[in-house]
């Protein structure tokens, strides 16, 4: 797709959108999404802990989550998340390398700022990021999973923010965290040799086994644990805690009288203002409001403050519907 639109094309798109009824160049309604294609799991990235690929129209994003063990400080105390977005050169063939870098950095910072836990605005420790990072802790104050979230924009035919967040959400929901068990070196009550606490040997007597069980449980909190071991192989494990809260983005392309969702490349260029809203929902079933996690206003256009609050509310409704549609696909209740 070409980079520019002629003035006649722009005015054709705008006039069609503002006519009654509003018409889009492919006949969709203003808030209709294109068909969302979803693939996840081993078919996308077999070596990742969780992965997903989303295609909306010609926009395609692959996201993958990889967990790695990291030594952490006592103050930090919990797992972290590192986000990175790469744009395939084929996605923006008309842009120079520097311009592509800018887009990558932009998207990376948007993801990173959304997903990294910020203690300041999260007073009760109840947000998605804080719940998630707690569940990534292996040994408090010593070891934790670092979550590497990598996304690749394979092609961009408009609405890249929404697709990026959808792919990331699907990948995070697909992630399984390997179960771990803390082990410590304990002086056995009988005998002289040290033995690993998590071990279960056939020759152990019942009394000793009970002791070991106790130490293993206690060591989770008592910072005496020396190391940890995996309970199952890498493919297994539990879902990430709080994964249903993982946020989605909804982009409203704002015209003075109306807005459209899921704009194509041409529409994005014709419409002067884009409003990216990022929402997280605790549970869809309850009528609880979503948590507002971020917002970006892109483009040269302007919007009055009074109008903006209405847009944000509508954005929440769309985000809620999008999340519930995705949850059905990801089998999240």
């Amino acid at each position, binding site marked *: 797709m070409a980079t520019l639109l002629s003035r006649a094309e722009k005015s054709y798109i705008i006039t069609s959108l503002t006519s009654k009824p509003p018409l889009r160049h492919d006949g969709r*309604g203003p808030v209709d999404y294109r068909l969302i294609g979803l693939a996840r799991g081993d078919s996308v990235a077999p070596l990742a802990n969780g992965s997903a690929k989303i295609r909306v129209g010609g926009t395609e994003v692959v996201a993958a989550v990889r967990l790695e063990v990291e030594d952490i400080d006592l103050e930090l105390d919990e797992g972290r998340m590192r986000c990175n977005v790469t744009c395939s050169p084929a996605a923006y063939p008309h842009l120079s390398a520097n311009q592509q870098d800018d887009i990558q950095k932009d998207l990376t910072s948007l993801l990173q700022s959304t997903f990294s836990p910020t203690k300041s605005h999260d007073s009760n420790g109840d947000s998605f990021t804080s719940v998630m990072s707690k569940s990534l802790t292996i040994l408090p104050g010593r070891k934790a999973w670092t979550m590497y979230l990598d996304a690749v924009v394979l092609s961009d035919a408009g609405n890249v923010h929404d697709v990026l967040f959808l792919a990331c959400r699907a990948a995070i929901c697909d992630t399984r965290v390997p179960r771990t068990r803390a082990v410590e070196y304990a002086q056995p009550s009988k005998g002289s040799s040290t033995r690993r606490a998590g071990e279960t040997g056939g020759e152990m007597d019942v009394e000793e086994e009970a002791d070991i069980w106790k130490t293993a449980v206690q060591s989770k909190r008592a910072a005496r644990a020396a190391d940890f071991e995996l309970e199952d192989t890498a493919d297994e494990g539990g879902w990430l805690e709080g994964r249903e809260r993982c946020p989605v983005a909804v982009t409203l392309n704002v015209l003075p009288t109306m807005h459209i969702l899921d704009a194509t490349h041409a529409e994005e260029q014709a419409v002067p203002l884009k409003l990216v809203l990022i929402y997280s929902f605790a549970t869809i079933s309850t009528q609880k409001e979503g948590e507002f996690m971020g917002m970006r206003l892109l483009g040269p256009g302007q919007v009055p403050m009074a109008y903006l609050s209405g847009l944000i509310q509508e954005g929440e409704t769309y985000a809620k519907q999008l999340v519930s549609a995705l949850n059905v696909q990801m089998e999240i209740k």
Partner: protein
Amino acid sequence: MFKFAPLGPQISVYEGNAHDSYVNEEEMDWDDDLVGNKTGIVAPGQTITSVTEFMRGHGTFADGDEVAATVAGTLQRVNKLLSVKPIRSRYVPEIGDLVVARIVEVQPKRWKVDANGRQDAVLMLSSVNLPGGIQRRKLESDELQMRAFFEEGDLLVAEVQAFFMDGAMSLHTRSLRYGKLRNGQLVTVPPILIKRLKSHFCALTCGVDVILGVNGYVWVCKHVKENEQVGEDGFNAESVYSNKNDYIDTSTRLAIIRVTNVVKVLAQYYVSITDVTINHAYDWVVETGHEPTDLLHEDVAEALIQAITIS
């Protein structure tokens, strides 16, 4: 509002009947040594022939003593020269082709134009219609106001006039039918789907004009009546180079959307795009009472392709 689907291949190539292939079988008396003598379709690496007397053209390589294809496409033979025309490639221009193109840069005395080719095309200031009469020499004042004719992003319809030494094409718009495009929208399709026709300006029965650029850019716009065509009675630069759209009513806009979606579906299933196929498909959509958006669904699109390729 939000619909999900399992992710499959993006474009499912339509496996049509043999008569849909781009090779006209009657013109070719395939030697038995050539593969694909039914469809003329070859895959990369596939041996085309082991007879050594053939010459290897584009899209082929010597695999030992055999000639093999480097690309997926249709086999073409001119006397002893074998070549494979790729299914997917950039537009390969020929002189006289009608193209729809977009200005990317304004340079001294020329415009750089994107025509979906391997290189940007060139439109010289001397090969456009200048205001105040068709045949006149360009002046310095014309050079200074080149953006008044075409500016970056403008779409135009032009003809391939010549080639430069490096293979870039030179365009011209020295006809009243050529020039700036307004009142419609662009669809991009693979260039191989646009055959070279008698006329690429098609007035469809539904009252929509379609310009089938051989380079794969298709312009769908409001119908302009023959006698209302700009510049018929004397050349009017203001209206030829205007950026303003005419008033277009809702039913015309809907028809434009329907034609756009029909062209997209045809391209998705790799059916060649001509005024006949578009008219046929459009009639099917109207007859079956589908909304323009229904064509975005796979089952409706498949039914459409079935309907127009069988008859």
